[in-house]
């Protein structure tokens, strides 16, 4: 992961606090119980591997938010003409996301993945990128995946909810 900056350099970052407040105040889509099965052959294969390892598609491992269940307006960043796709993951204590590769980054052309925590790092808030764990970050830090198709996963073994904004930039076909 490459740290590329912090959103505090933007003129107005009030939306970050508003967004965090909104996410903490409500329930998102419960994954994987309420859907979210990855699409495509590779998505299917990863899903099956996870089930074979013992993960249950009927459990709740984390919650997801996107433009369909978030009211806070997320500003348009400069994307060099590329399209933007964003979502937010909320992990309550004990939640996790098994290690996986994002199938959408294979389907989208020249996809770049960004990872933006909405809170300062706390003990037990874990993000795994290949064999690396990202710690000691502060709210609004922007990290870019060195490889958008890298293996990654997350867990919250701490005492507070963990909220992260994820953005993918890609070229329309």
């Amino acid at each position, binding site marked *: 992961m490459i740290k590329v900056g912090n959103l505090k350099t933007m003129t107005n970052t009030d939306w970050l606090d508003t967004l965090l407040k909104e996410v903490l105040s409500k329930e998102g889509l419960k994954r994987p119980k309420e859907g979210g099965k990855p699409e495509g052959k590779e998505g299917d294969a990863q899903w099956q*591997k*996870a089930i*074979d*390892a*013992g*993960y249950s598609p009927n*459990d709740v*491992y984390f919650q997801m938010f996107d433009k369909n269940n978030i009211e806070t307006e997320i500003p348009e960043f400069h994307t060099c003409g590329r399209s933007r796709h964003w979502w937010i993951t909320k992990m*309550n*204590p*004990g939640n*996790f*996301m*098994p*290690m996986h590769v994002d199938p959408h980054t294979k389907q989208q052309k020249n996809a770049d993945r960004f990872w933006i925590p909405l809170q300062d*790092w706390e*003990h*037990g808030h*874990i993000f*795994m990128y*290949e*064999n*690396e*764990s990202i*710690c*000691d970050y502060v709210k609004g830090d922007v990290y870019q995946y060195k490889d958008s198709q890298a*293996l990654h*996963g*997350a*867990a919250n*073994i*701490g*005492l*507070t909810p963990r909220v992260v904004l994820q953005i993918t930039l890609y070229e329309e076909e």
Partner: protein
Amino acid sequence: MKFIGNYRDWIQDEWLEFVKNNDGIEQPKAEFVDNDIEGAIERGDRAEFCEFQKQYGSAGYDFKSLLYYIFDGRNFPFDIGIPPWVTDYKEGVSGSYFNLFKYKPGHILPIHSDRVTKYENNCKRYWMSWKDYEPGHIFIYDDRLICPYKAGDVFEFEDPFAVHGAANIGLSERITFQFTMYDEQ
């Protein structure tokens, strides 16, 4: 965590097979039932320990659930002796205990500090994985991820009272061993 060395040869095949083929004591569920932790919380016994448990309960952890398996002197039918990297064990002076942890995919151990080590005199704690590192096998000590490692690698806790935790978000079982030594009072 301080790397001590690799002691893969010490791990007997039959020990590993036993842990792979059996599930241990369900934690923290069993701990709660065996020690009547809920009763203790209600009665206000063991105030410090219960305060710690209450904090985790408030965060949303369900202590009646299965978060991981444990093996120790109660259910591990082998005499492991004193591990070979422990060179300062003194018969009649030193006390010790071990724990073996088995995490299936999706199992976790919330971050914590082992409070008992605070009261143990001259406490030393060692951590060893019985399997090679795989992606998603997480051991966090303070803010450091311990990885990659090989089966048999031994690390010493620089501070036995340090905050640590574990999770398995990978695709295979994760088996780790912990040995604690202290001076008897």
